[in-house]
């Protein structure tokens, strides 16, 4: 299987603060790959290096054999990016936003079909400003897909959505992935990761501390002190706790 995204020993500093110390993982073409880690761990920063919006301080980032911050033009076409926080133009209607963004790409998706697939057809004439959180996320995914990307990067797709909307998003991501698009998914929800991700990486304080399948993550700490079976979430929390302690000891 070929590699879609390769990140090796990625470091990133902002001024004098080093945010990423050593992030290393690779994403295979066609898989759904999760990026996990506590708030402030450096997930969004890593992603911004992958989409070329930030320049790595050192280390290697390759996306479909290209260097993102160098070959930005190509990366912008190959990678669809759903930003963690972005406000879309509220005065525009859903269809209008999609049409505008579609024309920014050389080989866009058909807007009507894309709206169908993302469940936006009934909202085509709604102003963006009137959409609910879940509807906005649908639009943001649709915008990430509109340029016919080979890779989509979804930064906290389902944070803040109700259970029904989350389920709808998951089905959407599965459909996207079924179409052969590589998906990078930043998430805090272990149930989401368990259901969607082929593999995942865990970033803690700017360092990769685990890369593997959800099953392998679970295997790191499968049983609770009372002998019962741990959930994936508990295994993840255990890993974070252990490694935070270790990092704390190293610093002191």
């Amino acid at each position, binding site marked *: 299987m070929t590699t879609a995204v390769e990140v090796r020993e990625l470091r990133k500093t902002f001024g004098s603060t080093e945010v990423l110390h050593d992030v290393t993982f690779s994403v295979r073409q066609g898989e759904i790959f999760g990026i996990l880690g506590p708030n402030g761990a450096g997930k969004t920063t890593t992603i911004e290096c992958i989409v070329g919006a930030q320049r790595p301080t050192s280390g290697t980032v390759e996306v479909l054999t290209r260097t993102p911050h160098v070959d930005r033009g190509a990366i*912008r076409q190959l990678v669809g990016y759903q*930003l963690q926080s*972005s*406000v879309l133009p509220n*005065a*525009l209607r859903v269809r*209008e936003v999609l049409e505008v963004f579609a024309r*920014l790409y050389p080989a866009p998706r058909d807007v009507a079909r894309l709206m169908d697939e993302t469940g936006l057809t009934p909202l085509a004439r709604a102003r963006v400003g009137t959409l609910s959180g879940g509807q906005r996320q649908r639009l943001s995914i649709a*915008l990430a897909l509109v340029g016919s990307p080979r890779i989509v990067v979804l930064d906290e797709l389902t944070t803040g959505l109700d259970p029904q909307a989350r389920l709808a998003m998951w089905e959407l991501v599965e459909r996207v992935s079924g179409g052969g698009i590589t998906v990078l998914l930043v998430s805090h929800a272990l149930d989401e990761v368990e259901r969607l991700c082929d593999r995942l990486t865990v970033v803690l304080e700017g360092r990769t501390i685990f890369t593997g399948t959800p099953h392998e993550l679970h295997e790191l700490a499968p049983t609770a002190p009372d002998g019962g079976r741990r959930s994936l979430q508990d295994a993840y929390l255990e890993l974070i706790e252990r490694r935070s302690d270790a990092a704390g000891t190293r610093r002191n």
Partner: protein
Amino acid sequence: MRELAALVRMDRIQLMRNPTALVMILVVPFGLLLLQAYLIPGTRTPVDADGRTAIDHFAAIALLVAAMSVALTNYPASIAGYRETGMLRRLDATPAGAGRVLLSQWVVSVVCLVLAMGALCALAVWVIGVPAPENPGALVLVAALGAMSLMSLGSLIAAVAANVPIAYGSGALLFMAGLLFAGVWTPGPLMPQALRDVGSVIPPGAMTQGVFSAWFEGELPLMTVVVLIVWAIVPAAFAARLFRWR
């Protein structure tokens, strides 16, 4: 071209659906002109040797005011708004490009400017009774160059302002300075020579002086044209280099 047309469509829709900004472009210069024409006494008696009245001078200033409100406040504030909300970051993830994002705002602003200035000239000549332009071609040229030089200046704010209040604040400062050099407080012959000299080499003063000569004297000083062209290019070039997506 297709990309630019798409961005222009987005900017146009946003402007049309937020008519306050559109109305403000016209309210201030129209208000200024109507106030001078009908409420302030003595504005229709000649103030200089050529028989020009204060209202004639204000017609030229009103064009500047319209141009400045678009170029120094509306336009930078729109871009700063995109930056503040993260829309610029979103656009940065598409193949749109900074140049096209700015250019699209230029296109929309220029259309607003043409309409606003056209409406002001019509008001001045047909309603208030200011003489028709001596040299309409020169008037159009100098008004267009003036507007470009101001847009270019506004681009500096648009390129870096982190949010809407900063953009409006800096725009308003330039706006006030512009009014001073255009002679809003010292119309026509009342303006001190020093102010006139400085004004003649910066956009607001050069534009007003150029508009005035084209309109009432039928002339277009070459110096004014050169000054405005330089200002239309230099700040815009800097702005493109300084442009920040976040």
